[in-house]
Each structure stands twice: as C-alpha cells, then as structure tokens.
C-alpha cells in the first residue's frame, strides 16, 4: 500500500477548503453588497434577520435552494443546464493556485497566472450558453453583449498581467509575491501603477460588474443572460460571480499589492485584508457609477485601455532589458 502523494493530498485539502469558503464568501458578500448599497442610497439595507440583517443572505440562500427549477418552452435542455454548472466548476480550479500565505498554496504550479486566465475564459462560455439556450430574446441580447465585452476586456487584462510578470520574471504567483517586499513602496504597484489601473478596470469588465454589467443590465434586459433561471440555476451564476470577484482581487493582490507581505500581522491575514479591501472597492464602484452605454464600453477598451496597455508593456520590456545590461 503506497502512501498518498503529498501533492495530491494538498490539492484535495485545497479543494475542500475552496468549496467551503466559496459558499461562505458568497453569503458574506451578498450581505456586504446589500448593506453598502443601502447606505449609499440612504436606506438601512437588510436589518430584520439577525444582527444588522447578517443572517438575511442565509435565508435567501435557503429560499433559492428550495425553489422549483423551471425550464422555458423551446429551450435546449442539455445546454440550458450545462451553463450554470460550467459557470461554477472552473471557479473551484481558479482558487487552487492562489498564494494565500508563504507556502500556503493548494497547487504550486509555475504557470499559476496563466492557469487562472485560461480557465476564467470558461465563464464567458457559460454566459453565452445560458443566453442562447434559454430561447429568450433578452437572454440572447445579454449573451451577445457578453461576448463582445469579454473578448475585448480580456486583452488589456492579459497585457497588464504580462507587464508585471516581465518585471518579476515569472508567471508563478508565489514567485511574483516573493519578489516584493514588506512595505507598500516595495510592492509592484509602485513600479506598475498604470498596469494596476488597467487591470482593475478590465477586471471589472471581465467579471461583468457594474458599471460594465451590460450582459445582465436589469433596467434594459430584465436580467440578461440569466433571465430564465430560477432557484439554484440562478444561485450558481450568482455564486460564480462573487467567486470570480474574489479570484480577480486575489490575483491583483498577489501581482500588485505584495500578496502576503505586510508588517506585524501574519501573512494570510494581510492577504485576506488586501483582498477584502479590493472587494469593497469593487462594491463601492458598482453603487457609485452609472452603467456605461455599449459604445462607451467599447471605446474605453479599444481606444484607451488597449493602447495604454501595449505602450506600458513595451516600456516595461525596454526597461527590463536596460536593467539587464546595466
């Protein structure tokens, strides 16, 4: 009887931890989002169930689980149910290469960033399938918007990540974090401020968060691509959105904000603090800015983000090469 290899055990524990934390993060984030939205709109938000309404998301989740699953007439049954599963499954994989602390990483691969970028592309696919398979005009419109947006915003995102990995000389998230120091002025954000800005904006676009939430724009498309989903079909999309936010913020933390580095407190605490701060920023952005028009969305990307990202990458490459000769 051979012992189970340590790597396999690592992944197994990681998967269990991820599966547990995704649900918890979803519950907490729903509460935070509704509370922040409430206070920004000068109302209290949920406050009846539990202290300050903290148990409200739990009740909502139970309600979602208990609801009947409907499928519209004329929908493609296989694709219709494949879509929410496809939205949620890659998320479990996306969490594995995240370096939460020094050595605290479920899957230590030297192409961690690439793994996350590759599998987060499957989220677009689920938006498309959901919109197409529902046999609904709103759904289809939402899906069509989703494609144009995702294809566009993926490019500056990739370019800004590349700029950082040029400086760090690695695509391994843990390696990139190790190259940064304890204090904020030792972080990559100091050398790559433009890349950070581009990353955050295109990450908002990639995760379909407001002001770039055109695929599900409630006021125009009822709910866009997930109009026809009830119960946990909708719940899975919802969970996947928050999980993707966490992944995007974690990657930003590792690449730009020094990851687990920080004074006094232990590493994982710093990591969680930084990720939470970025998540809060995304929530604030959502409730501060109005939704952009579709032409504005594309102009921002193709006329601003993309040229800036390319220029930033070229300059970075130039200086990296210069530093090698010096």
């Amino acid at each position, binding site marked *: 009887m051979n012992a189970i290899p340590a790597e396999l055990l690592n992944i197994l524990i990681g998967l269990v931890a991820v599966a547990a934390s995704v649900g918890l993060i979803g519950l907490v984030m729903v509460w935070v989002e509704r509370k922040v939205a409430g206070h920004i709109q000068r109302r209290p938000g949920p406050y009846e169930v539990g202290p300050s309404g903290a148990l409200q998301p739990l009740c909502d989740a139970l309600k979602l689980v208990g609801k009947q699953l409907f499928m519209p007439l004329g929908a493609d049954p296989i694709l219709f149910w*494949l879509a929410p599963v496809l939205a949620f499954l890659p998320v479990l994989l996306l969490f594995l290469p995240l370096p939460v602390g020094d050595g605290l990483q479920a899957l230590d691969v030297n192409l961690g960033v690439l793994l996350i*970028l*590759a599998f987060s*592309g499957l989220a677009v696919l689920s938006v498309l399938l959901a919109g197409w398979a529902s046999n609904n005009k709103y759904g289809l419109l939402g899906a069509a918007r989703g*494609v144009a947006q995702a294809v566009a915003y993926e490019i500056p995102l990739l370019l800004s990540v590349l700029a950082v990995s040029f400086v760090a000389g690695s695509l391994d998230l843990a390696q990139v974090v190790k190259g940064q120091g304890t204090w904020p002025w030792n972080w990559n954000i100091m050398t790559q401020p433009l890349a950070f800005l581009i990353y955050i904006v295109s990450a908002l676009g990639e995760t379909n968060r407001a002001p770039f939430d055109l695929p599900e724009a409630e006021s125009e498309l009822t709910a866009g691509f997930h109009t026809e989903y009830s119960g946990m079909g909708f719940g899975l999309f919802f969970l996947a959105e928050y999980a993707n936010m966490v992944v995007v913020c974690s990657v930003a933390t590792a690449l730009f904000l020094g990851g687990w580095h920080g004074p006094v407190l232990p590493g994982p605490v710093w990591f969680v603090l930084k990720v939470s701060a970025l998540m809060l920023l995304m929530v604030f952005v959502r409730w501060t800015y109005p939704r952009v028009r579709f032409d504005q969305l594309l102009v921002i990307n193709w006329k601003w983000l993309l040229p800036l990202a390319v220029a930033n990458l070229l300059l970075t490459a130039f200086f990296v090469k210069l530093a090698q000769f010096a």
Partner: protein
Amino acid sequence: MENIAKIVFGFYTLIILGGSLVAVGAKSLVRAMVGLIATLMGVAGMYMLLNAQFMALMQILIYVGAVCVLIFFAIMLTRADAGGEEADSAPLRQNLLALTAVLSVGGILGWLVLTRPLATTGTPVEVSIENLGLGLLGPYGLAFELISVVLLVSMAGAVLLAWERRNGK
C-alpha cells in the same frame, strides 16, 4: 504510474472522439460548438499528459476562450436555429467523400508516425517557457515569422472585406 497514464490517455481520447462526433453530427450549431469545445479541452489534456503545461493552458486560453467565443458570435449573427437548412443530413455521396478525405489524411499521418517514429524519451520532459521562447526566436525563427505573416495577411483581408462593405453601402 504508467498504468495511470494509460487510463488517462484513454479518457482524453474518449473525450476527443466523443466531442468531435458531436461537433460533426449535432443538428444544432451551438451543440456542435460545445462538442468542438470538448474536443479542444481533450487535446489540452493530451498536452498536459505530455508535460507541456504551457501549450495546454494556451490551448484553453486561445482556442476555448477566444476562438470558440468568436465562432459563437458568428453563430449568433446568423440566427441559425435547429430547423435550418444545415439540419438536414447530407447526401450519401458527400458523406463518402468526407470519409475518404479523413481516411487519406489520417492514413498518411498515421503511417508516417508508425513507420518513422521520432526518437523520444520514456517519460515526458517539461520544456520551460524560457527555452520555448528562445527556440521560437532562435532555431525556429523563420517558421515563427512565417506564421505571423499568415496572421497579418488574414487580418488585412478581414479589414479589407469590412472596408469594402462599408463603402458599398
């Protein structure tokens, strides 16, 4: 370990074959595309088995994440539903011709692989990205540049087509 590799190989082969059968045979275009995606994921798995992680991830990033999404976009623009013209099964002659085409190309490639095997190592060796990049810009520079020319030509063609359509309006 070797047995696990064989089982995994069989698994990926099943995914590739099953996916490509769906891609060719499905009545609905979108289902055909999902089959294509399954095939591409299977190929990515094969790359993983060859210890070419970079290739596998690039396969997913580019083919599944970008190319398939663009194909989907094209399907959406055509508004092709399952009852369209392409849903009817093709005539026998066409099927036979397709089969001959597949068998001839597959036969030649298979014959080449079986009779003239390349010298390989027993277990796959991982090539680092540095070596991959050096190889592409060094010994394989010409091939690399030629590919970029092909891409440039197709891009110019696409721009030209769009331009003419716009002027003709």
